[in-house]
């Protein structure tokens, strides 16, 4: 079985003449052209086309409401129902981050704070969105359910500095998240 001999298909007269195939091809391409001009291409509805082909035209039309549940957009930090920032600055995400996009400066929580027993919170938490590859490893590795990938995908800026998400910005994107495990509460 080392050598497989392939037999070329025997062409009939019509196939050799080739014009029939050309005409078929023209009908196919013109059919596509006409259908796409009428906005009736296959899949135009399910892909929410702009009325020309199956394409959605970006700035006017957005994919937002069609984004799947598992979409991985910008990573963000969350607070819980009690308003406590969930991150305890364990720095696991910083260590796991493949492109080294995350930088954390930990700090102590002062003793008079109601959440003093949590001991630590981040002083600074920067994610460089130029480096971020949206892999979701930070979310996966976080023992505190503090960082999540959200559906934001339009991360733009005019300078490198604009592309760094600071702690404030991250909490702004993340907002409050309910239904998480509250292991630091008195009543679990």
């Amino acid at each position, binding site marked *: 079985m080392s050598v497989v001999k392939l037999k070329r298909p025997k062409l009939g007269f019509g196939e050799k003449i080739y014009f029939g195939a050309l005409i078929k091809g023209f009908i196919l391409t013109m059919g*596509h*052209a006409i259908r*796409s001009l009428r906005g009736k291409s296959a899949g*135009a509805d399910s892909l929410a086309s702009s009325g*020309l*082909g199956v*394409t959605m*035209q970006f700035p006017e039309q957005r994919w937002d409401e069609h984004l799947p549940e598992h979409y991985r957009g910008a990573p963000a930090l969350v607070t819980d129902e009690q308003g406590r920032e969930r991150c305890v600055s364990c720095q696991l995400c910083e260590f796991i981050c493949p492109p080294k996009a995350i930088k954390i400066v930990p700090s102590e929580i002062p003793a008079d704070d109601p959440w003093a027993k949590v001991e630590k919170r981040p002083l600074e938490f920067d994610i460089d969105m130029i480096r971020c590859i949206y892999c979701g490893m930070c979310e996966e590795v976080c023992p505190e359910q503090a960082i999540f990938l959200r559906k934001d995908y339009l991360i733009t800026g005019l300078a490198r500095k604009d592309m760094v998400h600071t702690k404030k910005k991250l909490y702004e994107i993340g907002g409050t998240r309910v239904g998480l495990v509250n292991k630091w509460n008195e009543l679990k």
Partner: protein
Amino acid sequence: MPDLLIQLLIIITKIVVLTFVVVLPLVPISVYFERRFSAVIQDRVGPNRVGIPLTLLGFKKDFHFFGLIQPMADGIKLLLKEDFTPEHVRKTFYWLAPALTVIPALITVCVVPFGSPLNFFGHEEKLVIADIDVGPLFVFAISSLSVYGITLAGWSSNSKFPFIGGVRSTAQMISYEISLGLSIVPVLMYFGDLNLSTIVQKQADSGWLLLPFWKHGSLCIPDLNTALFWIPAVISFFIFTISIFAETNRMPFDLPECETELVGGYHTEYSSMKFALFFMGEYAAMVIGSAMIITLFLGGWSLGFTLDAKIADWNIGGVGLAGFIHIGVFLSKLIAFILFFILVRWTVPRFRYDQLMKLGWVIFFEAALINVFLAALILAAPQFSAAITIIGAVVLLVLTAAIIWVAKVSEDRPKLLRA
């Protein structure tokens, strides 16, 4: 002396207007059509954004004419790109080659009749730059020079893929010129003239070559001889059109620049405006090729169906309208044919090189040759007795059968002496 001056002025005006206002803009427009039409064929949108950015000036909405400014943006991009000359090229020919592809394509413009004579207060002015009596021959002679550009580009780039592209293109263009030239011999025999303006005028009067349904100003069924000549005319049309595709290196035959095998083909080492010149040359050749097909087979500028005689006298204050209408008709036919070129490009897959050569040498060359004799027989039949015509037909049939047999036998595998 003033007469001569006026004559010169008219000639210069014609050259400038017809070349730089009519044909050159057709190049970017056909690029635009290519992109939009291919997009529509593939269920996409294509470039529809570039326009006048009014939002930058504080207005609410941008103004974009369906992206019609896109070719201009492309042109500016190509002009402003770095014009990089690689170290290893043969400089003189490297710089010469792009010009050698564009210039022949633009020179051939001068024999194409763009419309019927313009009538200004009784003074007639033909809408063709050079009304010479060797029209098609001139076009073939000049347009075949563009092979030098491509070959020199391939050779002077001094690297492997462009070289193969250049060699391929030389072989291809030389092969297809034969069938190109032979295929229009019947047409020229039919009209008995090589002047393109006269050919178009004859078609306007007595029916386009492919639609001979009117004669002497009235619609009619063609007589037997004209109807019979329709067969060689259609064969000519097929061979000529397909050979033009090969001659302009368009899609089913674009082996000189096929990306999958040769990176970019003969212009791999070119960048910026030098690359753009190759691009322009290719599209200009396409425009001229379509113009030739239209002029020879589809009635050139004529409206057809006896409408030309009706609009001949229309004028506004002594300025004849017919000429302008005919320019419009010619240009719309031209754009329709360019759209056909584009449709073919996005429908037909590329030929293999041996298939291309076989098509040129084994099929088209013979078919065009037989077609010449067939046309001659049909044209000469009225002058001869029936017996001579029938003998001629039989000889032609035998000849055709013999050629088909030879072509078939030459395709068979040689029998091995020892199996």
